């Protein structure tokens, strides 16, 4: 019996220390880890795809005239990253931040305000698909840097490039 105990002790000493010294030393997360989500207002087009697929509905979009206010309730986020999968512009992505414990619940609420076009009938905000409308818009990112001038909301109208794929009308397609 004593022999067995001795063997056990040798095995235990051989194993060494396994405990992580985590809060005092940083720890690496595995690859493709899905942590707290982050977003970029400059990339977002406000299509609402992420709000559609979010299982806990933690992304809520409110349309107020031409303003879309997107609120992220990270307290009920389950980090499924479906918003990242569905986002056409990849304006929202999961980070590797898992240290999200907080004593204040208001830290878990983030906001994003976007300037968009709004429907004159129903009032819903939309990102226009028409390239000519987009040329007037401040949010047109198709070509060149945005210019700010005395015109206020609408910048200088850039010269229309008729070779742009959105402007070219194909033969099998009826013109709008």
């Amino acid at each position, binding site marked *: 019996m004593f022999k067995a105990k001795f063997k056990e002790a040798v095995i235990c000493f051989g194993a060494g220390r396994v405990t992580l010294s985590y809060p005092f030393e940083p720890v690496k997360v595995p690859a493709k880890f899905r942590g707290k989500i982050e977003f970029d207002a400059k990339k977002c087009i406000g299509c609402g795809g992420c709000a559609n697929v979010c299982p806990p509905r933690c992304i809520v979009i409110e349309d107020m*005239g031409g303003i879309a206010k997107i609120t992220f309730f990270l307290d009920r986020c389950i980090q499924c990253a479906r918003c990242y999968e569905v986002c056409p512009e990849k304006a929202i992505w999961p980070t590797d931040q898992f240290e999200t414990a907080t004593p204040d619940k208001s830290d878990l609420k983030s906001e994003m305000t976007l300037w968009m076009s709004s429907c004159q009938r129903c009032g819903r905000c939309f990102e226009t698909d028409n390239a000519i409308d987009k040329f007037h818009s401040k949010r047109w990112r198709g070509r060149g840097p945005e210019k700010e001038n005395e015109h206020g909301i609408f910048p200088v109208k850039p010269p229309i490039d008729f070779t742009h794929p959105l402007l070219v009308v194909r033969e099998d397609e009826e013109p709008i």
Partner: protein
Amino acid sequence: MISDLCKKMFGKSLWLFHANCGACNGCDIEVIDVLTPYYDVERFGMKLVGSPRHADALVISGSVSRQVAPALRRLYEATPDPKVTIAVGACAVGGNIWFDTYNVLGGADKVVPVNVYIPGCPPRPEAIIYGAALVLGLVGKKLSPQCQQHLPPGFHLEEHLKDWQSDPVITRR
């Protein structure tokens, strides 16, 4: 502030009472995982106890359902002062996917005051250790709310919202 208070009050060891208020067992497994030798939260003097009267801290997991809410309230009152309440998991923090269901209250803070929130579904064991270290005052808070705007120059958001208050707000979710 909480960490300063905790340093003063819970200087030696923090005994936990784990209250499952309708969890799917995911967060419970992670809480047990934290007590194993690999993650070993017992080096901070934390251990699970079987009675709320022996406990210093309540660890609440699960979306608090309507049936369990009075029991959780009794549990909180049975825990001697001073006490810390820790909500573990997206259910206990904000209600998860059941946040607006009829039989779920959507978060432990609707029933008892919560001191530390640990979101995640389930939270990583490291995240729970981080929350425990936050309670003990070993680490600082890293999270802060983000507020981003992408508006054209010369656009006054407050004036726009003032004009818009009379019309209904369309919510997409």
